[in-house]
């Protein structure tokens, strides 16, 4: 078996790649469903219905996609410059901490100022947290995968300490949770019923903004140039370290905003289970989107649908919710293989 580079990649083939990947994922995972003793088509039908089947389901899918869009964007931007930020989870919690610190009585502004102020503070907190690994990388060449990943646990322990100690809400009957965000700081609901909130607009705006920066600006050019070929970028006169620092600030900032949006939009206060791994799933979102900022939106919706749908499916039939994690994992592998096959072909000899 030999792998050969294709002369060119047709648009049709490139467009078919994600669809083929989704289809392949469903086929591969059907083995597990059969193993669980449930008819495959019924299970997938339940999953689909759970994600899109009712207005409640749709609202849930959209609500859950908000943090995924933001962490997906955070990862996509960073990976573009080959800065492997695996710490979106920690940066999300850093943003959440900032929203609690500034949003529970530190200051009270009118809502149209308070909400942007909290988003800004969250972005700064996320960016500041990522500054540690990025400076270690640019100054001392410390591998950022290790530092960003390990910082996640540091931040999580910090959150645990704060909400069980100094920041615990005295009104929470002893539950480890922070005080609630003041009314002016809450992200407004988008629809009369359900949990969908203005975080969706923030996430969509962020996607468009990141896309515009990457496509039209000198900074976007520099981020891409550093990612493609740092040596050539340096030779051309691009300041590689400065570019990586800017990239990290944007990336950490986006993840931090995800934390604000979850606290001020959805939960109202900070708990230790604010994020069921949105930061890590953000890596999957970014890979599915092939690091393209606009594709992050459908990719996040797709993964969100799997999680929401799988929850609902597992309630209806006897399949553990872990199937969602398997589906997400397999879909990322499938998309990577499919994308490779748009660029290479496999030839079997003899």
């Amino acid at each position, binding site marked *: 078996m*030999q792998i*050969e*580079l*294709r*002369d060119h990649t047709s648009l049709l083939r490139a467009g078919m790649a994600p669809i083929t990947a989704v289809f392949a994922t469903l086929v591969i995972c059907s083995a597990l469903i059969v193993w669980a003793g449930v008819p495959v088509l019924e299970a997938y039908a339940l999953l689909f219905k759970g994600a899109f089947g009712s207005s409640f389901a749709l609202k849930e899918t959209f609500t859950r996609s908000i943090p995924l869009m933001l962490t997906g964007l955070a990862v996509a931007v960073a990976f573009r410059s080959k800065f492997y930020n695996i710490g979106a989870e920690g940066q999300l919690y850093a943003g959440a901490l900032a929203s609690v610190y500034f949003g529970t009585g530190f200051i009270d502004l009118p809502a149209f100022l308070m909400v942007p102020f909290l988003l800004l503070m969250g972005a700064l907190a996320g960016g500041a947290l990522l500054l540690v690994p990025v400076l270690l990388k640019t100054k001392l060449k410390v591998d950022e995968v290790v530092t960003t990943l390990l910082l996640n646990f540091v931040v999580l322990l910090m959150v645990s300490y704060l909400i069980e100690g100094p920041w615990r809400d005295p009104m929470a009957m002893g539950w480890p949770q922070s005080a609630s965000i003041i009314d002016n700081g809450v992200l407004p609901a988008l629809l009369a019923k359900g949990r969908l909130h203005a975080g969706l607009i923030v996430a969509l705006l962020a996607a468009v903004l990141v896309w515009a920066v990457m496509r*039209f*600006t*000198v*900074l976007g*050019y*520099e981020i*891409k*140039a550093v990612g*493609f*070929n740092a*040596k*050539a*970028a*340096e*030779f*051309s*006169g*691009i*300041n590689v370290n400065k570019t990586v620092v800017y990239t990290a600030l944007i990336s950490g900032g986006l993840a931090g905003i995800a934390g604000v949006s979850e606290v001020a939009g959805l939960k109202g206060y900070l708990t230790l289970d604010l994020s069921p791994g949105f930061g890590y799933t953000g890596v999957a979102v970014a890979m599915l989107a092939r690091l393209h900022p606009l594709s992050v939106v459908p990719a996040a919706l797709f993964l969100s649908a799997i999680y929401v749908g799988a929850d609902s499916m597992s309630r209806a039939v006897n399949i553990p919710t872990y199937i969602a994690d398997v589906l997400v994992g397999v879909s990322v592998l499938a998309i990577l293989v499919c994308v490779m096959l748009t660029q290479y072909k496999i030839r079997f*000899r003899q």
Partner: protein
Amino acid sequence: MPTLSFKQITKRFGSLTANDSITLSLGDSEIMALLGENGAGKTTLMNILFGHYVADEGSIEIDGKTLPSGSTEAAIEAGVGMVHQHFTLADNLTVIENIVLGTESLWRWRHDMTAARRKLIDMSEAYSLTIEPDALVADLSVGERQRVEIMKALYRDARILILDEPTAVLTPQETENLFITLRSLTEKGLSVIFISHKLHEILAISDHVAVLRRGKIVGTIKTVDADRNGLAEMMVGKAVTRPRLESMEPGAPILTISGLSATSSNKLPLLKRIDLTIHAHEIIGIAGVAGNGQAALADVLSGLNRNYSGSLELHNKTLTDAGPSEFVARGIGRIPEDRHARGMIGDMDIWENLISEDLRSKKVSKWKTIIRKKAAIERAEHLIDSYDVRCKGPLAQTKLLSGGNIQKLILARALSPNPDFILANQPVRGLDEGAIAYVHEQLFAARKRGAAILLISEDLDELLSLCDRIAVIYQGKLSSALPTSARTVTELGLMMAGQTIQGSFESERDTSLNSNSEIHAN
């Protein structure tokens, strides 16, 4: 019966036919030269022989027996040995360890070198190849490393030795030594395939020459019947004349380098008190064996390394502490050594690569923030046209271009702002004849309009035909730059090997500088 024969070998990569029904045969004790430009299919053919690739059609026979395709083990078993252009030695192991590596079973109880040592000593006597078995490879010179590579092949009982561009890294004297070795090997019955694009070497060493062009054999002739021009024409397909240097009076000094020293990150000296002044209308060549400080000098002169002592002055104004963008803005054009790794970003479009050196200029971006794509594409169209870049247009991806066209893009980016000083580091390495002539023409045009040019090259012929003056770099020291007419190949070769010739390396020889060669002597 020939020792080795290729029968109708065809290999395709997608739409490209790299080898088109190639038939060749090599007899006992013969040296066959394989001549062809980059991309003519020489390396592909050797990779098929060595089992790295499988031919789509055709077969290879050794001593009349068909060689199983796609198996490196079978090729070695049949007596094929390959010496790659880039050595495949482990620096931290000794000579004998490198030679034995891979021939021993991993499932052995102890590490017994006695038999290996005996075989190695017998071999070096038989082929009069002197080598110290216990020397560390890191301490060997390039010529010695190549000898280890040859020994490695012989240790595996090779009878057919393939040498891929073996002289690229050697001084003329080391090349002469290699030729002596090759002749003694063929006297003992070995056959050699010698891959090269250097005509005078092929004429000096081979028995017959096979010329490849675009994957096809265009002719096989006896070396005694061949001449330089005829071979060049066969290789290129048409008569190509490289431009000649017009004599010209040098103008005012443009770049003055004084007392330039630089050290590596682990404090080893790379450049030692270099002094050089380059004038308008002047091309100065830097000759030297790879790894003697050329890269360090190029890094300083491209603005990449600011960690040096001494001074750089452009038009009598110091350049200290300026980075690549300031260098470009102040009128320095830079052609990097590695056009793929440093020169262009392959994954970006052509128009994007052509603005990379002045991203924040008014022509390229609004408020130093938003890229003026339309203007950038117009610039790209203009440059593609005036530098004759063969491509689909400004929006094509850069990595799809051939090496020659990528080099034209680099020239376009570096030379179109009419820089006063041009650093050209190995500007024609790996290019075909047509592209080489084009690059030389562009450098001559820049010289004519008054630019000062520093040309770093490992190819003495190129330096002798292009430069007004030539200096030699050896272990970080630069000799004085003497007029080309006062230089001979022999003299330059000796200087490249570090021999002091009157008027070359400044009088006293720094001891720390020669620590490396002292290790060899021991």
